[in-house]
């Protein structure tokens, strides 16, 4: 397998992991919205309510930065990172 193919395989792997986490917090948990709202969440808000107004949103922010960092590592590993003067 060429270097480029390996790079793409890892990139795709990272995509699936990132999208899996994204799926859980944008869609997955809301399948159980009613049940989850009976439980107390952070700062005392009902749990589903907290996810819709802070939790999921904040997780997305962190997820993107995490993804960006991991993707940079993959690019560097295979020598595909941009040169500084690019």
């Amino acid at each position, binding site marked *: 397998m060429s270097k*480029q193919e390996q*790079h*793409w395989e890892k*990139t795709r792997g990272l*995509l699936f992991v*990132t*999208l899996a986490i*994204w799926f859980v*917090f*944008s*869609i997955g948990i*809301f*399948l*159980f*919205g*009613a049940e989850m*709202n009976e439980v107390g969440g952070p*700062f*005392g*808000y*009902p749990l*589903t*309510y907290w*996810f*819709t*107004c*802070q939790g*999921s*949103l*904040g997780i*997305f*922010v962190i*997820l*993107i*930065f995490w*993804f*960006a960092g991991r*993707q*940079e590592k993959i*690019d560097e590993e295979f*020598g*595909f*990172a*941009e*040169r500084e003067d*690019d």
Partner: protein
Amino acid sequence: MKGNFIDNLPKVYGIYTGGFIGFIIIMAIGEQMGMTAKAIGICFVAFTIFIYALIGWLSRTAQADAYYVAGRQVPTVFNGMATAADWMSGASFVAMAGGIYFKGYGYMALLVGWTGGYVLVATLLAPYLRKFGCYTVPDFIGTRYGGNLTRLLAVIVLTVASFTYVTAQINATGTIASVALDIPFQYAVYVGLVSILLCSMLGGMRGVTWTQVAQYIVLIIAYLLPVFWISNEIGAGFFPHFMLADEVARIGELEQQYGFVKNSAADLANVPKGLAGITKAHSAVNATPWAFISLALAMMMGTASLPHVMMRYFTTPSVKAARKSVGWSLFFIFLLYSSAPMLATLSKLSLIDPTLPTGIIGKSIAEVQAIDWYQNWNQANLMFVSDFNGNGTLELNEFFMGGKAVVLATPEIAGLPYVISGLVAAGGMAAAMSTADGLILAIANAISHDVYFKMIDPKAETAKRLTVARVLLVVIGFAGATIAAMEIQGILGSVIWAFDFAMSGLFFPLVLGVWWKRANREGAIAGMALGLISGFAYLIWVRNGGSGFLGITQLTFGIFGSAVSLVAMVVVSLMTSAPNAATQKMVDNVRVPSGRSVI
């Protein structure tokens, strides 16, 4: 000099922020010294528009690279702020807290959708399109798939989606300008339009970038300051985001106590158009999982297909910076979106809790009608009470409010000085203007670059290209304003449609262009054309009384459109021959950050 400007950005915008806070303080002093509310409103709106116009003029350019992609040198954090302003429209600013106030959980799917979409932007598209090196979104489609037809279809989808969106924004600038400057709406729309064009016409993307950063600073101050202030004023806690659990629970109790009494159709006929009462629980889950998820999903895929957002990531210096910049964008958006539910909570509690001095439910109707702020907002057609059951006391189901009033009127209700209301007007104006600018520029750039330069006159000189781009900017702006002046849809209705149109026609052609090498021209044509047409047809069908299927409503028709687009694209691609070696190589090239851009 240019490099200098980029290096000095933190300082420049630091001084700007300080200057704006100084201006707020001067206005506050002016208010104490007897400046009228109207004069303060005019000062806020006029002063901020003047600053944006000044930035627009300073950013004027005669170079194509600067006009289309701001010279590709916008640093990540500043691009994040510009994207956040580009993204948060008049609807986000003025109507979102209102939507949460009235509809609760079901509406909050939009919060999840309008933020979750950025994960798709960061992972599936932005870095790859940045590497591609295109000027516009149709530029990517046209080059990746080849042929003028693909390019043209992409321009059509882009125009349909963005134009739907832009009329709503011009409408919002008109609404705010008409209230703040006290002029009729039909004229205010054009005042809004001229302000919008002042930012973008001379500098194109460069002008829009630096005004959007300035607009973000105004709008975030204008949104957060009242939320924190009101929370302190009514004793709910100094940091509302972490401290409103008791207030949320209290609203739940009051809802139990009052009950949601349904009004008869005859009673509702007396309520002015556009006003609503509280009929849904505040924090309880009041929508089926599918209603919530389908709306969130449609908004997420729409986010990843809207060209005015995508093109902001063409302006970063590198692929790496494009990825990070998406994270910063969402962070800056998060600051406002996480505050909207808090504002809705504070607003609702201060109105319905009879133990608070501001509470009006349970007071006598005559007493409420004598309150100053009630009279003001009643006159502005944003508040209404009526004694349906004739007991002389105001009940929960007898109080009606416009969605905009939550943001616009709450400061006044909570007893904040008028200077805050002026600030809020300036913030709403900034939000609507920045989005309108991004959208009008997206359309004008697509037509000038992809239709005029790439298809009609490929030999045109830069000066001529930019003249065409600027003329188009003005024409599209005026067309949008003319339609906005007719007031067809509410602000939010047409905003949501824009997402559905964009995802119907563009989501899969964009994503598969990067992630599926086998996708070819015929597939892309089928995907864009059939996706847009079927989405449109579904919308018309449901609007005309069609029952729809799978619970897909007129707000989520993009789910149907994009499903058709995906199937059509895959089937047609597989039935026709694979793209040639040059195209395959181009895709390989897009997938790695290093090396020269593709175009």
